[in-house]
């Protein structure tokens, strides 16, 4: 496990509900989240040292849409600011790394995405190989279908296993006021549904969602000054596999295994896991690659199958885990974010409550 130069904690967080359609701008979605976290820490906005956001112009449907999003974070007079064309979890990663320099104390992190105006299947097909994949419209749902089929062919999962992930996720989401979908489903009824992407059915796939999330992180002394119950980031790591799905073993996630080792996942108990299960088969791959056993509560929030605002969904996993820790559902846990198709890129973040 990598030792950290600076201890860093989450001191405030906020998220929007996962909306089927938010009929206003992305900025109007982000702004209340930003205002909430600033209010929680009780700081003057301009005393926050660094600001970073994650979003995707292809989803927003406008070149330089991320610049417009700056409207929502309070950037006048100008602030020290950055952006990643990634989920907000990667903005958190950059903010965390920035704090390791030890010269600043606080970072405002946000992530936002509106999937409803466009087609995320078409938008995210553009992040595949531009010569041999993108011109075919090779979309993330297709690649999830490949992963599902590979799991079945390898004898590692069945369609019933996928349906059980869906049932658990929707049941857990009943306790999550931010969830878009929730309820009591039956495995047999799910299995009677038609395929949308054989071997996947509609609820094996995420809903179309709009949403935003924001967070303030701080170095140790500042964290204790800003809040009574900081949630500590004990490790964070990001690993990437080939963008050629045919060169990967889709039934395993070596990138998750490496990241888990780097963050020292099993150096302590893993009470809670919030995983970016965008397609139900991914939970099976992730549980296995993270070596989770029955002691870990997985996706108490319901996870992305019950609300998936891309570009906020990974940061939201971190928030849901922090909330679980604050609420005493566990003392230590792991949040997972993914990018690229079929878990091509994975980020792990280990959080621990104040002891």
């Amino acid at each position, binding site marked *: 496990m990598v030792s950290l130069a600076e201890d860093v904690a989450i001191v405030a967080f906020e998220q929007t509900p996962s909306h089927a359609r938010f009929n*206003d701008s992305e900025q109007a979605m982000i702004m209340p989240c930003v205002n909430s976290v600033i209010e929680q820490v009780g700081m003057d906005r301009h005393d926050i040292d660094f600001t970073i956001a994650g979003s995707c112009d292809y989803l927003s449907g406008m070149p330089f849409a991320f610049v417009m999003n700056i409207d929502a974070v309070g950037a006048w007079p100008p602030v020290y600011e950055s952006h990643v064309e990634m989920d907000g979890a990667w903005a958190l990663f950059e903010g965390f790394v920035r704090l390791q320099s030890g010269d600043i104390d606080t970072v405002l992190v946000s992530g936002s995405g509106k999937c409803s105006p466009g*087609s995320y299947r078409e938008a995210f097909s553009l992040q595949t190989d531009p010569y041999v994949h993108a011109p075919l419209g090779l979309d993330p749902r297709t690649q999830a279908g490949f992963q599902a089929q590979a799991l079945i062919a390898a004898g590692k999962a069945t369609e019933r296993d996928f349906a059980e992930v869906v049932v658990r996720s929707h049941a857990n989401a009943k306790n999550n006021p931010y969830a878009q979908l929730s309820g009591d489903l039956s495995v047999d009824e799910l299995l009677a549904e038609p395929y949308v992407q054989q071997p996947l059915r509609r609820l094996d796939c995420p809903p179309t969602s709009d949403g935003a999330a924001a967070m303030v992180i701080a170095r140790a002394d500042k964290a204790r000054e800003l809040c009574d119950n900081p949630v500590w980031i004990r490790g964070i790591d990001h690993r990437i596999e080939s963008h050629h799905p045919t060169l990967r073993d889709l039934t395993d996630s070596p990138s998750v295994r490496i990241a888990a080792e780097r963050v020292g996942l099993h150096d302590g108990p893993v009470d809670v896991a919030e995983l970016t299960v965008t397609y139900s088969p991914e939970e099976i791959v992730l549980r296995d690659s993270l070596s989770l056993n029955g002691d870990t509560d997985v996706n108490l929030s319901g996870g992305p199958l019950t609300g998936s605002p891309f570009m906020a969904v990974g940061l939201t996993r971190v928030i849901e885990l922090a909330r679980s820790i604050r609420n005493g559902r566990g003392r230590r846990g792991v949040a997972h974010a993914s990018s690229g198709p079929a878990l091509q890129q994975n980020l792990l973040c280990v959080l621990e409550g104040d002891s």
Partner: protein
Amino acid sequence: MPVWFGAPVGRTAGLLWGRRWACGELAAVPQLHDVDYTLEYPYTRTTGPVIGPFLTGLRDGRILGQRCGDRVLCPPMEFDPDTFATLDPDLVEVGPGGEVVNWTWVAEPSAKHPFDRPFGFAFIKLDGADTALVHAVDTGGDPEAMGTAMRVRAQFRPERHGSIADVCFVPEADAAEQAIEPGEEPVAITEHLIGLRISEPLYPHRARFAQGLLDGKIIGQRSPVTGKVYVPGRGYDNMSRVLMSEADEVEVSDVGTVVAFTELNPVQYYGQTETEPYVRCSILFDGTDQPVIGIDIRDMTVDEMRVGMRMRCVWRDPEDRSVADIDNRFGNIPETVYARFEPTGEPDVLADDLKDHSW
């Protein structure tokens, strides 16, 4: 339901906004439309020493793999995927037959897929290759025909441009013999037209702004914190980080002051519809704190424009006004609601008095 294809409107950065809107009856064109456009742009890429011959091969009816030690990679790569060592270009023909090693059935094809009817995507290990190519398999819409270990064969499209989409696959028994005439020049550049379809209602404040223009009014929003008036409103005051609503809306004057202008000399990028130079200016309407940018002036030359010049909006007749080009993203006043902007003849405002409002 008739569908109209509006003339594409050129935007900055070479982006085409090919608009399309539907209307119920020609006699009653609905003015407050849903936003519906395709943001489209051709990406051109050099192909390099390995992908270039591969795409040239596809155009010419052949599939090539790249030797990597004792293996053959297809799709070919410029590097060894295990060691990342650079590979010297060494291409060898593979296929056209192959075996499906993984597959999934696309019940709902997207607009970007190779087929508009249900089809299979598959990992295809071509005969003579050691790695698999992702590609589409057309079984005539029958998912039952797909399966692991099925034999497939390449079929080349009648029109080929040096693209992975020049080819597709069918069950081997369905394959036809093809005589392909090779092209001439190697494929050094490949072009991929990307497009993102955006479809959404006008945001409520945008709809009210658009309706105002139809009524010959310019609607702004007054910040409840600072009192500053923004036109058009964006639903928030970014300076104070506060959301704004209909309660914050005010009608503002249609007389204002030029705070910036430029002459646009249209570069003929993809999607450009303008051909002649024209003036674009920003006008700070009286009583407001933020100029409206992107007001186009067709009947004055750049030499006649001055910062500080007073201008008034001359509206079109109500029945000639249209806001069909208004979307949720750009904040100008479209030419389809005004006949022209004309100088009022009042003395110019001193530029120094505009310095906090220039854009």
